[in-house]
């Protein structure tokens, strides 16, 4: 994946199993990853290398993750930080801390979600993407007028279907999880027990896929969905 390549991340996590799994997922996605087991080695790493983003676990053995982030900021490191935490709600201190471009992810998380979040963070930090107009094959999406066309023909989408399509297309070629869709498209902070997202995807497919062909929105069971590009 050309988009992610050449970007360097620092992963600060003391639990080896999580560190290994996150590191592997990031490397598979084309990131260059350095790891640190504690705050001390993280500070050493940032002195030696320049990073495009950091992933910091809050429960470090030697220093609280929030204190580490504060120190990094004092050192003048402005790279965006993705905070990992086992706590369900945002820590009060984090609320007080100006998060800026930083983000927060609670354990357990899906690798796809972590990749999407860190990608989003780094992209926001570098502000490179044109966001108002998306074109994928025969699909064109105008985020300003909220219209989607296929081969120049206007698609009859409900506002929510439009948002769903826009989000999938923005992340075309990448996995998006159900909880990401629930949060970004419907503003839901939890997972319903029933397969409601599948029903919405099913309806959208009926509107954008040519009859008889395989759907462009592919379901990865247990993980999420991918909008495939040709």
């Amino acid at each position, binding site marked *: 994946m050309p988009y992610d390549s050449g970007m360097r991340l620092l992963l600060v996590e003391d639990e080896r199993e999580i560190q290994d799994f996150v590191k592997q997922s990031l490397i598979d996605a084309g990131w260059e990853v350095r790891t640190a087991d504690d705050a001390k080695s993280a500070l050493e790493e940032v002195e030696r290398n320049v990073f495009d983003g950091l992933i910091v676990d809050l429960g470090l053995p030697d220093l609280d993750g929030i204190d580490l982030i504060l120190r990094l900021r004092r050192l003048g490191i402005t790279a965006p930080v993705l905070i990992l935490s086992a706590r369900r709600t945002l820590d009060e201190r984090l609320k007080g801390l100006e998060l800026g471009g930083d983000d927060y992810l609670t354990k*357990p998380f899906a690798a796809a979600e972590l990749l999407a979040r860190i990608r989003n963070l780094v992209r926001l930090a570098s502000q490179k993407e044109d966001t108002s107009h998306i074109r994928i094959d025969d699909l064109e999406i105008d985020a300003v007028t909220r219209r989607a066309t296929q081969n120049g023909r206007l698609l009859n989408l409900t506002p*929510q279907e439009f948002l769903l399509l826009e989000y999938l297309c923005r992340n075309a070629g990448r996995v998006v999880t159900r909880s990401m869709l629930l949060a970004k498209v419907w503003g839901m902070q*939890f997972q319903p*027990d*029933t*397969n*409601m997202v599948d029903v*919405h995807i099913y309806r959208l497919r009926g509107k954008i896929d040519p009859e008889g062909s395989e759907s462009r929105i592919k379901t990865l069971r247990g993980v999420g969905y991918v909008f495939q590009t040709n």
Partner: protein
Amino acid sequence: MSSRRTRSLLHSEAWGISLWATLAFAVGSLLVFWGLQNFVAKDIQRRSDTWLSGEVEVLGDVAGRTPKDRLYDNVVREVAELASREVPNRDHSSGNGSDSVFFLQVGTSGDDALWVGTEDRVSAVAAIRSVPARGDSPYDVRIKGFAAPFRVATIQIEDGSHIYLGLSERDELRVLRNLRLRFITLWLVIVLLGFLVVFYATWRMLRRVDKIALVAAHIGRADLSSRVPAPRGRGEVGRLARTLNHMLDHIEATVGQLHTITDALAHDLRSPLTAIRGKLEAALLPGSSTDPTERIVSAIEELDRLSNFLNTSLDVSEARADALRLSPAEIDLASLVCAIADFFEPSFSERGCSLQVRIAEAVHVSADAALLHRVIANLLDNEIKHLPPSRTVCVSVQKGHETAILTIEDDGPGFDPEVLPHLFERRVKGKTSRGHGLGLAFVQAVVRVHGGSVDATNRVGDGIRISVSLPLLKRGESSKLPAAALVIR
């Protein structure tokens, strides 16, 4: 055994308290008596002084008028003896007045012309003459051979001679001594009795406290179901015991709840964990008939459900303990319901059910958006899970009197009558439900934190009705909810 008991009694608080109380009482009553006795002594002396002054004047008058002839001595002596019989405070049992009263006339030349009184005339006269007279007021004179001093009044008559009238203070002192003796006896009895009464009362009360402490220690060590003995009545000790027992009831209930929750949680975790493990193992087995990917996917889905369950479980507990962190904002309940219904509608129609939304106007409430969102989603999710095909769910939002009312009705089979009374309790679910029985418990907990109420009934005919009431946000009123409700009930 008894010596140990005595020792423990001596070290008890009751002993100390009674000792101090008795000491305070004893000293206080002594001071009062001392004051009283002084007053009595002064009064007695004042009376005898008045008598002396009066008598010495009478005697002086008699002595001045009586011619100095042969009979002079006899007349004066008789008058003096008569006077001595009228002595105040006189104890008649103690013999004649000759040793309690004396009369002395001293001539101008310094010779003691006349003496009526004790037989030891020489030493008495010497003692009287050694003390200079102090004008009109009587004064004390000590005479050798007499234990008690004499009170002496003096007067000078016309021929220049002095007349001394003395009165022994013996009777006076005896009265005072009697008074003191009686008081001391009475005082000792009262102090001892007081000590016993105070000690008994304190000891009885503290023994109750001690019993409470003993039982409390036992409860602390082993048995949470015991209760401290609670005496009847409105006393402080009774109140202490009752308060302790209430606290213990609460602790026992909480611990019981905790046990139940932990057991249930362990049970709930164990089943899916077993399933996940089984599925992953099966995926690794060579030559299996089904695709290993399918099993892994199924395991991941199970894990997602598990993590969801854990989160909801914790949310319900937090909401029940009023420890949910709220970020209240002004929310239009009507448009929120519309948006959520939009999300759920496809799932309803996929099952052949229809979802109707009846909304007339915007209804503003002050609530935590994310939590309220989940409350509505939970209610609709429940409907999807339990409603048989081709039924209708109707959601409406109305303005009531100072409340916003969200009603969900369906024409399904209704709640199981056995479950209905316990619908909002944790882990209560219908026989056919595959859920964890947390949905409605969460709904109620969150609504309560927002100052509202939830009511669930079976409709006449068929179907259910759940209505959620929330306080209506009044015009111009900003959010009243505390930013973080951290009250532990």
